[in-house]
């Protein structure tokens, strides 16, 4: 009797607490999206009914649309580079005995422990000193620095002993090293490779400080949104923010699907 009332009380309290936390988590997102849909010039209450006026304004703003294209390009290319370098090095470290392997792996994952601000600062000082101009390329290089250790860690952790035997079997049956890589390792590791790629995409897509420090005229969307913030509360910012949110959701859902696909194997 007593234990069932305790369990009931725990359930009710849990429910209330969960609702409160969900409320806290979604409050800003709901406010953002809701007031992006109103026609007035200020994204503040009261809500005056739906309108796509500010979405039109965003899509008509070439600075924002070109920044969006830049962001997607930088994210896609830097993630492709990061996942390629991460995969090759993970394969090398997982399959071969290299002197100082632990230390070298530590070096590759080291950037994970340093804040983006400091990575950006370092590149800024170096590029400034070497005369490399601020550009999307410079920001992309920085994005590879932050995403390479992530891709490496994800792929390296998925290279188990079972896969070592699978590759051995392929070699045993006469496959040269490059065929082992293309026909066996890459397909078997595909879920981890895609997971690394999409996670890198979301981080690069979202990254602000490095892009802010390393780009000047052509820039990425987060930096362009930052510039919009100078004008204070603005429904156009709400609209572009909601669009960015939507793209992030698509990337995350793709990432989740990759993880789910990996499960039955």
């Amino acid at each position: 009797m007593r234990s069932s009332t305790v369990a009931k009380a725990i359930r009710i309290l849990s429910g209330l607490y969960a609702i409160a936390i969900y409320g806290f988590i979604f409050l800003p997102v709901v406010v953002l999206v809701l007031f992006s849909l109103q026609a007035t010039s200020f994204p503040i209450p009261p809500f005056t009914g739906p309108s796509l006026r500010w979405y039109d304004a965003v899509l008509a703003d070439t600075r924002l649309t070109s920044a969006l294209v830049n962001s997607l390009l930088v994210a896609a290319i830097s993630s492709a580079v990061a996942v390629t370098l991460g995969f090759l090095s993970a394969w090398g470290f997982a399959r071969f005995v290299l002197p100082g392997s632990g230390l070298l792996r530590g070096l590759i994952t080291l950037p994970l422990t340093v804040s983006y601000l400091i990575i950006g600062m370092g590149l800024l000082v170096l590029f400034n000193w070497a005369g490399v101009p601020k550009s999307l390329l410079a920001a992309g290089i920085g994005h590879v620095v932050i995403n390479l250790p992530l891709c490496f860690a994800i792929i390296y952790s998925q290279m188990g002993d079972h896969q070592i035997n699978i590759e051995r079997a392929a070699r045993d049956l006469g496959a040269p090293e490059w065929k082992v890589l293309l026909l066996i390792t890459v397909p078997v590791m595909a879920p981890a490779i895609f997971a690394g790629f999409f996670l890198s995409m979301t981080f690069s897509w979202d990254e602000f400080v490095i892009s802010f420090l390393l780009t000047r005229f052509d820039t990425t969307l987060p930096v362009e949104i930052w510039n919009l913030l100078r004008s204070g509360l603005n429904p156009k910012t709400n609209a572009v923010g909601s669009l960015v949110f939507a793209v992030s959701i698509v990337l995350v859902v793709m990432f989740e699907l990759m993880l789910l696909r990996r499960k039955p194997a």
Partner: protein
Amino acid sequence: MTAPLVDICSVSHRFGQQTVLKNVSLQIEPGSYTILLGPSGSGKTTLLSILGGFVTPSEGKVLIRGEDCTAVPPAKRPTTTVFQDYALFPHMSVGGNVGFGLRMQGIDAATRNARAREALALVGLSTAFDKKPHQLSGGQRQRVALARALVVEPAVLLLDEPLGALDLKLRRQMQDELKAIQKRVGTAFIHVTHDQEEAMALADHCVVMNDGRIQDEGPPERVYARPATRFSATFMGESTLISGAVTAAKDGTIAVATQVGPLSLTGALPAGTTVALAVRPEHLVLGAAGGAVGLGTAKVSDVVFQGSFKRVLAVSAQDPALHFIAKVAAAAAVQPGDIVAVSCDAGDIILLAS
């Protein structure tokens, strides 16, 4: 027969500080089924890896069909391996798996599919061609791995504890099939296991290994009946081991002082040699109607009913350090606590130098 199919010459191997193979030499005949039997850490798997080309030995040579293959990579040597975890390619169909070796040889798709189907038929899996490995049971995966390794027609097929992941019943069934398949294809099989029953059931030639050395090799019947060392007497089946020392030797007869008193045996060892006398459980006789050689009396400590027989453990009254292991008829009336006379026939005593 001129040269052996595989000739392992004085192979030693070290992993770091640890020596896992110590001067091992072994010959494999064409068409034979060889079992490498030993406990874990005996070096049997390392020896198989050296044959497969996954490990290059620190010293010594491996000749296959008379050619030095010591440092030839796995892809280029005429061996294929069936891995313990099968190592099937999870993203390919069963047919793709079996055809992989032929694909690497540049054989066209139609031919390799036909040959893959033949190989699958050989292992009794003709219907599985289009399935994915994860849709198969453990025993079926095992067969696919076998078909994949056989289809490229290797000179030697290497099997690394191939039945280790299967449950007991399936293991016994696969044993019979492995033997049948080996006889049909005529390829030399080299099979690593720690299961002595598996070894006795399958081997033409049984190689007992321990601590990086070959302890004994020969037909399993001989290795069982006349083990060459203490180790093989206890690892390939059980034995009671009585220790002693030769006190006198004369005209092919030796007198041995043992834990159970002086015994007279046939043999030609010089006086002073320490020896061990091994007796198989089925050769020990308990009770009055004994054999020719008396081994004293013993107190029965445990009786285990095993279905077709009873396994009896008894402690010698002469030396409590001596434990007898005997096998008696299921109907025999033996109880723990009984004091029984122990004896055997002289011919059943295996004399081992220790």
